[in-house]
């Protein structure tokens, strides 16, 4: 196996559902050795949720789990039991990074918090992912993706002004917190390699939205009192059109803020009469007062054409435009195929699946190749626990005690 960027980096993940598993998945894809700890018998929460192969619920056939845990080793362990904790501490002695998202447990009470662990493992990098932060007034609040997106500010920007705001789809908050945590871990590892010192990462899901996404608008709010609100399918913050409109077989995005792009767009539509009206010459005026009329004109033209036709016409006219692509269109797209983005991976439990998303960064010297499918529940118990010095007899006792 060729050397990868993170080869040799040892990671223990005591995670659940998406945030921590996605974080360590990013590390595993670049070569880190990730051992995933799952609760005995039931496994990670994501195993209980679909999509399932043929819609039949099965802990070993959850598409979500299979994807988020590629390239990892899996063991079962209950660190809340004294014996389980003893085993975890043995594992941590040989670990660079420890990633946790287990909101139901009090790590301090368990003696698994950073202040305690750093005494034994001063070189360890520990990362905890929580909905609202490890400190602050909401540290003990319960929170799902819906709630951290709400508090973080992204939800207030999606939807129509007169209707309910909406949550981003597919647990974006969990995923983005995982990506941020992976970055903070890399900063910590480069620091550790240099100074020998470990560190503690407090990764809040809400903070991700409140900072790099929505936090951009704080100073404009202070200067101009402008509060960023939701404006439905079009953006009121840029010259019209930055809009999503329905067409014959779906919807398209048109984004032509520059005057020359707007001119080209009208030209591509055959220079319709309405385009000459003064209210559509002044772009700010269109955005502020006449976007609904413009929408109606565009829509009647778009509704007579398919996504593919519109995309072709607009691309030739050099007007930024795209079909709102559905997942099947993305998977089957020639561009994606040529880039080899999706990976076909066999797993003993769920067979071959061709559409595992890959990585967005193509490294010239250390490219990503999938190494192994996601582990079955406790798949690597024997190999890992025997290496730690436990015997097969010990393992049997530990299984009976519900430790592993």
């Amino acid at each position, binding site marked *: 196996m060729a050397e990868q960027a993170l080869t040799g980096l040892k990671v223990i993940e005591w995670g659940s559902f998406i945030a921590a598993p996605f974080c360590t998945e990013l590390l595993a894809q670049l070569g880190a050795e990730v051992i995933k700890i799952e609760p005995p018998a039931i496994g990670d929460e994501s195993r209980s949720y679909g*999509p399932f192969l043929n819609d039949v619920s099965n802990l070993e056939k959850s598409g979500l789990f299979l994807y988020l845990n590629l390239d990892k080793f899996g063991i079962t362990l209950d660190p809340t039991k004294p014996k389980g904790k003893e085993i975890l501490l043995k594992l941590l002695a040989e670990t660079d990074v420890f990633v946790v998202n287990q909101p139901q447990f009090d790590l301090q009470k368990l003696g698994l918090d950073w202040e305690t662990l750093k005494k034994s493992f001063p070189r360890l990098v520990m990362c905890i992912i929580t909905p609202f932060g490890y400190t602050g007034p909401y540290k003990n609040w319960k929170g799902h993706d819906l709630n951290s997106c709400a508090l973080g500010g992204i939800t207030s920007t999606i939807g129509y002004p007169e209707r309910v705001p909406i949550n981003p789809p597919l647990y974006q908050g969990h995923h983005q917190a995982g990506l941020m945590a992976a970055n903070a871990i890399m900063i910590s590892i480069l620091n550790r390699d240099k100074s020998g010192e470990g560190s503690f990462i407090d990764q809040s899901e809400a903070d991700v939205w409140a900072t790099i996404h929505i936090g951009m608008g704080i100073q404009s709010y202070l200067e101009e009192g402008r509060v960023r609100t939701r404006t439905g399918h079009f953006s009121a913050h840029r010259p019209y059109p930055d809009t999503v409109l329905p067409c014959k077989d779906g919807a398209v995005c048109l984004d032509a803020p520059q005057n020359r792009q707007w001119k080209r767009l009208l030209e591509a539509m055959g220079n319709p009469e309405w385009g000459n009206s003064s209210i559509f010459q002044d772009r700010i005026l269109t955005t502020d007062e006449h976007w609904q009329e413009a929408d109606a004109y565009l829509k009647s033209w778009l509704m007579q054409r398919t996504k593919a036709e519109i995309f072709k016409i607009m691309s030739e006219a050099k007007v930024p435009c795209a079909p709102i692509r559905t997942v099947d269109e993305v998977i089957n797209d020639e561009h994606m195929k040529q880039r080899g983005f999706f990976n076909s991976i066999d797993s003993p439990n769920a067979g071959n699946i061709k559409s595992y998303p890959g990585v967005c960064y193509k490294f010239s*010297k250390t490219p990503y190749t999938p190494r192994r499918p996601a582990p079955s529940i406790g798949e690597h118990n024997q190999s890992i626990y025997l290496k730690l010095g436990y015997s097969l007899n010990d393992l049997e006792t530990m299984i009976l005690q519900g430790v592993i």
Partner: protein
Amino acid sequence: MEEKLPLSGYRVADFGWVWAGTLLGSILGSYGAEVIKIESKKRIDGMRFGKVFELGEGLEKNTFFQNLNRNKLSANLNISTEQGVKLFKDLVRKCDIVIENFSPGTLEHRGLDYQNIIKIKPDIIMLSLSPMGQFGPLSRLDTYAPIISALSGIDSMVGYTGESPIGFKHAYADVVASMCGLFAVLAALRHHSKTGEGQYIDLSQGEAVMPAMGAAFIEYEMNGRITGTQGNSSKIMAPHGIYSCMGNDQWVSIAVKTEEEWQNLCYIIEKPEWAKESRFDNVEKRIALQKELDDQISKWTTKLDKYEVAKNLQNKGIAAAPVLTTEGLFLDPGMNERKVFVEVDHPINGNTVLYNWPWKISPIDKNKRMRHAPILGESNSYVFKDILGLTEEEIQKFIADEVIY
């Protein structure tokens, strides 16, 4: 303390502009790297423009620019001149990392693509961010962030359940791609420190969004089902929604996962009898009756302040949080206690409120840099005299020739 930062000693030639190309450099700078933003009056970073499209102080006012270009130096270099290209090559020789997000092919045209750069600096780490990647049929498309988000597939799921999609009205793909770029550069740095080997990274912004959509891609492959607009509904929780509160456009989010939480909720929303009704006694049944549930919950929330609702529910172990806007974030006690925003002094604009980094790293963060974004060309003397060793006369000549421009 700065020499103690994790990235001190690394130098970055930052050709990033607008959004996706710029954010990651400001974070590299914060953790110790020397990041030189290479700009030219011939090609002003669009983010510098505010209301005025002219040179001068107006270029220092845009708060988005201020957020995205912190902790960088700024050097003027016009690479549309031959001398500019030569100076850039001299600079690259003294750098460890190059970041760029030009349209694919632009740097090649100037002889500054990776194949040429490694002739000058064989172990360089070079990151190219582009809308859809450096190769492939869509690589030369004219785009902005909303176009990328549409092509990635995510926009097809943003909207009210069963209605036509409305898409993210936010440069989602730019932000996510920049953070993926940061991760890739940090991983490449570790590889370099272990092996001495640099490399090229071709990052597609469209692909950056896709790993966060894994379940939808696999659902299609497993069961042929195409995931559409999602609204606020959940497949695993009910009630699960955003509810109207007291005041104008005020909302709270509530998500109920366990049966115990459901029982507690019934009492809080003044429907204790529901706790015993069999038609609500599991998640599937409650999902089917979500409308009825939502109406009742709204009746209760609408009389109350959003924070009060959240606190009442959290006291009973139910997940809830207010929906905050930019204003709400600024005023929120939690965001303030966690120092999610920072004040950074700027020589022209005075104190500016910028966002802090999305994580807290202890003890590293106590030494991190948080310096204002550079004034256009403020580091010319340092870059051209101190790093490249040019004389004052040479510099004046380059300025007159619009090379240092």
